[in-house]
């Protein structure tokens, strides 16, 4: 079949575009070290009280000689626990690992204006680690439709300077 040279040119251009898209994604994950949520284990959503999710909140841990923080969050219709009733408070410039799960239905945990964004699925633990570089307040919204009051499901993360971090709010 004879194909006009212009058509041949833009067919090649289209293949090149696909190759370019794939190359940028590979570059992001290899050279820029971008990461996305992976598989982080399962849990019985009916029995969260026997797990760290039974006492959700911020915990301090020492890992490799560094102080790090773990945040256990339950997403329930229609709030983040903690997050909605009281903000999640963490210090700036420390590694913070979030563990999030849901005892009822599918929710989302989207830290607005950042790349921190995960589904929270009953029976699954969503885990991600980040460092908040500056002290400021971040909003959290549920970005997976979870029921009639989904649109009001929101919370806050308060990132404070390390010197102002109140360790009395930590949970055991």
């Amino acid at each position, binding site marked *: 079949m004879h194909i006009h040279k*212009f058509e041949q040119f833009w067919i090649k*251009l289209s293949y090149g575009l696909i190759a370019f898209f794939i190359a*940028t994604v590979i570059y992001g994950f290899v050279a820029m070290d971008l990461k996305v949520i992976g598989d982080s284990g399962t849990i019985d959503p009916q029995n969260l009280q026997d797990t760290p999710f039974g006492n959700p909140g911020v915990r301090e841990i020492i890992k490799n000689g560094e102080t790090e923080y773990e945040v256990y969050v339950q997403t329930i219709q229609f709030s983040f626990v903690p997050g909605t009733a009281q903000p999640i408070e963490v210090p700036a410039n420390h590694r913070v690992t979030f563990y999030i799960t849901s005892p009822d239905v599918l929710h989302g945990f989207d830290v607005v204006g950042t790349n921190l964004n995960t589904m929270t699925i009953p029976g699954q633990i969503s885990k991600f680690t*980040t460092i908040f570089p500056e002290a400021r307040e971040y909003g959290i919204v549920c970005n997976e439709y979870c029921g009639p009051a989904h649109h009001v499901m929101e919370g806050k993360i308060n990132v404070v300077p390390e010197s102002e971090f109140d360790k009395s709010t930590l949970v055991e």
Partner: protein
Amino acid sequence: MSDELSQSPDAAGADRSWEERNPDIEREITIDEFQPKGTLTLTLIYFAIVVLMWIFMYFVEFAGNAPSIID
């Protein structure tokens, strides 16, 4: 289009040449002589827009949206 042009070649008579059947068309060219440069230019402009939008979306909106997941 005139009635003559809209007639099928069979109806116009197969014994007449293509030029006789289509007197308004001055010259027949081959497919490779047809050079749609305007279409090529538009295609390149659309291509450039898609590439620039992708670079903006991926590197600025996604990768540049710190804080990010580090582990």
